[in-house]
């Protein structure tokens, strides 16, 4: 192989392509403090509102409500994991749409699964930057230590994160199908699922006919599990197993939908026109 051919031979493979796409987004955050601040803004704001509400209730009503306050704060923090996980994936994709850069990316040798890996990687980065300050604030202001949930916290967080991801791939599929008209779903879809996710109250509070909807969502099982740990000190493995199984089903469906819409976008020529 000649020196010229060697220089022309790609190096680094998948890892380098995934890093290339992540670098594109990290370079923006590296020198933009407003972007970093924007990541932390909502989780911290939510924490302050619900934290002081929980503190007020505990002051008026004593220990049982203090425990309920802890459940409230725990709910806020864990729900932020799903929200930020979803936003992390969706925003990473929408940034490419807004900058009309999708065509350049899709004519590079990056594989769709590598693009998905980069989006998930950026989602994790955004999650840590946005949620860790809120968790720290909850500990400083309200003496609520999310990590006191123990190792099971990792399982709760992982399930909510995966739920955020499959919703993100659903939203991204709709953007590929319907263009920027579907963009508002990026900010609203997960909020619309909050009432059925039993974040702040048990599933039993919901009307009988709504309970199957709630139990079809991994989040409802995670929050039932969180309340069991905080209120009774027990780990509900049945709920955790249900959440994981539902995530597998929903994630599989979302990835199939995303792949189908990506192919449909290549058939319609949408990768050239999306963002216009």
């Amino acid at each position, binding site marked *: 192989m000649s020196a010229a051919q060697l220089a022309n031979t790609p190096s680094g493979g998948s890892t380098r392509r995934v890093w290339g796409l992540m670098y594109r987004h990290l370079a923006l955050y590296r020198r933009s403090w407003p972007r970093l601040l924007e990541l932390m803004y909502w989780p911290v704001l939510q924490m302050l509102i619900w934290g002081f509400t929980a503190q007020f209730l505990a002051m008026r009503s004593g220990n049982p409500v203090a425990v309920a306050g802890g459940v409230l704060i725990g709910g806020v923090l864990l729900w932020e994991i799903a929200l930020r996980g979803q936003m992390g994936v969706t925003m990473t994709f929408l940034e490419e749409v807004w900058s009309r850069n999708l065509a350049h990316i899709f004519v590079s*040798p990056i594989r769709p699964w590598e693009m998905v890996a980069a989006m998930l990687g950026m989602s994790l980065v955004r999650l840590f930057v946005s949620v860790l300050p809120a968790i720290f604030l909850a500990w400083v202001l309200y003496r609520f230590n999310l990590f006191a949930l123990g190792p099971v916290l990792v399982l709760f967080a992982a399930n909510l994160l995966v739920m955020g991801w499959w919703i993100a791939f659903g939203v991204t599929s709709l953007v590929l199908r319907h263009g920027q008209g579907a963009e508002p779903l990026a900010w609203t879809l997960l909020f619309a699922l909050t009432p059925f996710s039993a974040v702040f109250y048990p599933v039993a509070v919901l009307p009988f006919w709504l309970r199957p909807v709630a139990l079809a969502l991994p989040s409802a099982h995670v929050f039932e599990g969180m309340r069991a740990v905080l209120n009774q000190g027990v780990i509900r493995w049945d709920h955790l197993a249900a959440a994981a199984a539902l995530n597998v089903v929903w994630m599989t469906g979302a990835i199939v939908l995303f792949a189908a819409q990506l192919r449909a976008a290549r058939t319609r020529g949408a990768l*050239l026109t999306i963002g216009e």
Partner: protein
Amino acid sequence: MDLHSPLRPARGRRADRLPEAWAIDVAHLTKRYGDVLAVDDIGFTVAPGQTVGLLGGNGAGKTTTIAMLLGLLIPTSGSIRVLGHDMATDRFAALARMNFSSPYVALPHRLRVVENLRVYGHLYGVRHLERRIAQLAGTLDLGAILDRPSGELSAGQKTRVALAKALINTPDLLLLDEPTASLDPDIGDLVRTRLEDYRADTGCTILLASHNMAEVERLCSHVLMMKRGQIVDRGSPAELLARYGREDMEEVFLDIARDRQRTAA
């Protein structure tokens, strides 16, 4: 390029040669959007090292053809082989060895020029990336703007950056969609000179869609004339000038666009 029977419209012909002999080998390529036939059963081949112009009026099917060559658009029917790889089944192997530039597809505006080049350097797996960026910055006179956000550049600077992005992986095949559109003559000449230099240095194949006939005459050894989704004529600029009895390619273009009769044999 397949130049057999250049007077006949090239509907789905392909040469009886090994695919590897061609940088691009297109056969019976068709793209239909509902009732609209954007590309109608075209076929052509481009030999390695050639610069071929893809000409035609607006809506002739040039951009659609380039999008299919890049794998951005799935054809309704037909086959495309690029650098010996079937774009339907093995496009990533071809994409690693090709690149693309168009003034209509932007690079992220908020990223600095050097960051944009790094992103694409990583995506294409470029060895010694910083050295390659410095080399391109020297060749394309980007040194002073490497640390500026891409969105703050002038049209000429953006075009040079887009060309740097297109050359970052030292491609064997370069697809260019109107590479000098909206540039002043000075910058346009610079871009054309750099393309000529690159081709001379590397033996790269270039497929160029352009409305600038002087550019086509200067850069292209062969031309494909498209109209209503079909290739209606083909040949070297000199052959086309002789065939239509014209002095320049602008007149040949107008003859074809307006269905004028040829005035020479």
